[in-house]
């Protein structure tokens, strides 16, 4: 068990990262109250778990890293948060993120960028960059994030921690502020596979408040296996292109060799529609976002940007001033692809492509492959500002992660080495609702892979 002061001290010490949005005083006060109320019999008793700022909490404001929700206090909390509290965990503040989870670097937050814990000139990845940075800095053992296109796994890879994106429908989305409803899932960061997995098992399971959450029992954690005997691991050739960063390739090769030594059967497979995943994602996600974000109009939530003479100009000025550049861009792209005359060319095509991408995975899994192993991101953490002017370059950093979101599959990123001191992540993609198998393999790999050695 931990005491509230020690928990708060560790978080406040990491303040220079700009990873936590909750002011220290408020954090200390809330932790004191929470620890007094926490159930000592809970499986996570005393464990501090900061929560990404797009997940509703009663204890703290929920701003989604946006000016349009500045100071917003949700009158209800997310089911995942309720479950954490019931297990005795402490909600240790709200973490900084890209505005409405749109971004891959946590530079698109209205509250300033988050620094990479190992190199302040670099980004921690995104959009759940604040959660990743706090776990990597050793401030907390685990944190909640959210995924729409890789927003947990990509920052986990950049920061050298473990990140899990569960199967769509494994964790309730109730209280997760909607961005792309057919893609969104709450995900978990941990210092180790076990830290992340135990938090995931607590927040998983049915919820009558979310009709897209499957009617299943919470995830049961597997035991740490002695070997990978019996596992068939596929290496999708599209995820190892010729232009892949050589250090990332070396780290992957080393991890693959180790999985073979542990007894896994490794074979090359093909997911032929992979090249279309990023364009598909950047049609579907903005389309869903343009619809989901229509509710922020200055009337029902958050601040209102005044000077408007009628209702429409109130909407327009509030939204124009309240949303940041990336969010505005995505709302406009989403509105465009859904508008009359373009719907068939963009949105319908993207929907068809999504089905083909999901089918690619089914084909591979139907041929006896249990899990897929890939790099999580094509490169280590990039420098702040490097990709801000070029949205497509930024989007490409999601190239190996968006497929699991499009197909609704579970995936985990774990550190498998470093290049010039910067972490590299390896990804295991599992079959729907077989997180236990995926976690089992991750346990085995984590035990042998030299995660902090140069690749």
């Amino acid at each position: 068990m931990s005491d509230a002061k020690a928990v708060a001290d560790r978080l406040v010490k990491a303040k220079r990262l700009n990873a936590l949005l909750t002011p220290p005083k408020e954090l200390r006060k809330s932790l004191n109250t929470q620890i007094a109320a926490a159930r000592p019999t809970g499986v996570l008793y005393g464990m501090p778990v900061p929560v990404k700022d797009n997940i509703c909490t009663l204890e703290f404001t929920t701003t989604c890293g946006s000016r349009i929700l500045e100071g917003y206090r949700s009158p209800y909390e997310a089911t995942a948060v309720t479950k954490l509290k019931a297990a005795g965990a402490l909600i240790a503040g709200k973490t900084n993120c890209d505005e409405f989870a749109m971004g891959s670097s946590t530079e698109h937050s209205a509250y300033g960028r988050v620094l990479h814990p190992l190199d302040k000139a670099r980004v921690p990845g995104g959009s759940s960059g604040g959660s990743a940075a706090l776990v990597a800095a050793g401030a907390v053992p685990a944190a909640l994030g959210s995924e729409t296109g890789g927003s947990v796994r990509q920052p986990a890879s950049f920061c050298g921690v473990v990140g899990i994106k569960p199967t769509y429908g494994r964790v309730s989305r109730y209280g997760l502020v909607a961005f792309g409803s057919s893609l969104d899932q709450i995900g978990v960061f941990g210092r180790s596979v076990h830290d992340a997995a135990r938090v995931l098992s607590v927040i998983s399971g049915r919820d009558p408040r979310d009709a897209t959450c499957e009617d299943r029992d919470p995830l049961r954690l597997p035991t740490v296996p002695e070997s990978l005997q019996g596992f068939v691991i596929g290496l999708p050739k599209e995820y190892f292109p010729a232009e892949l960063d050589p250090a990332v390739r070396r780290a992957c090769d080393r991890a693959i060799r180790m999985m073979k030594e542990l007894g896994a059967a490794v074979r090359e497979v093909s997911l032929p529609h992979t090249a279309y995943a990023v364009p598909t994602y950047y049609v579907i996600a903005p389309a869903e976002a343009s619809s989901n974000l229509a509710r922020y109009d200055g009337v029902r939530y958050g601040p209102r940007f005044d000077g408007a003479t009628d209702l429409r100009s109130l909407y327009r000025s509030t939204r124009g001033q309240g949303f940041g550049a990336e969010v505005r861009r995505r709302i406009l792209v989403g509105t465009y692809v859904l508008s009359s005359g373009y719907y068939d060319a963009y949105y319908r095509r993207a929907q068809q492509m999504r089905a083909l991408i999901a089918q690619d995975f089914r084909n591979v899994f139907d041929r006896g492959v249990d899990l897929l192993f890939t790099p999580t991101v094509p490169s280590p953490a990039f420098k702040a500002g490097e990709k801000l002017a070029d949205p497509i370059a930024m989007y490409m950093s999601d190239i190996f992660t968006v497929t699991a979101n499009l197909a609704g599959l579970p995936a985990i990123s774990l550190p498998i080495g470093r290049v010039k001191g910067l972490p590299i992540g390896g990804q295991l993609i599992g079959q729907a609702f077989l997180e236990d198998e995926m976690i089992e393999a991750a346990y085995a790999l984590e035990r042998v892979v030299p995660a902090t050695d140069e690749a």
Partner: protein
Amino acid sequence: MSVSREEVLRIAQLAELDVDEETLPTLAEQMSRILDYAAQLSAVPANGTVKVFVPGPDAIRFRADEVTPSQLAFGPDEFAPNFKEGFFVVPKLGHFE
């Protein structure tokens, strides 16, 4: 460039979003690049027989139609910018004869 300034303004109107003059050229350029990039999807032959993929449960489960107590910790009067007598107060829409 696939998206013109005028088109950005038209879309912004549909999205109920103010776009200021200075950012308009950059916005048009960036939207064009994103949409041109997405246009590679049309390289794949359209297939009307592909069933749309929707993740999650195959069928929507219905829950019992019962009134349960509201979970709200506080009401809209505390989170809306302006809320009076059960209504959200918004600026006057205009004058009606």
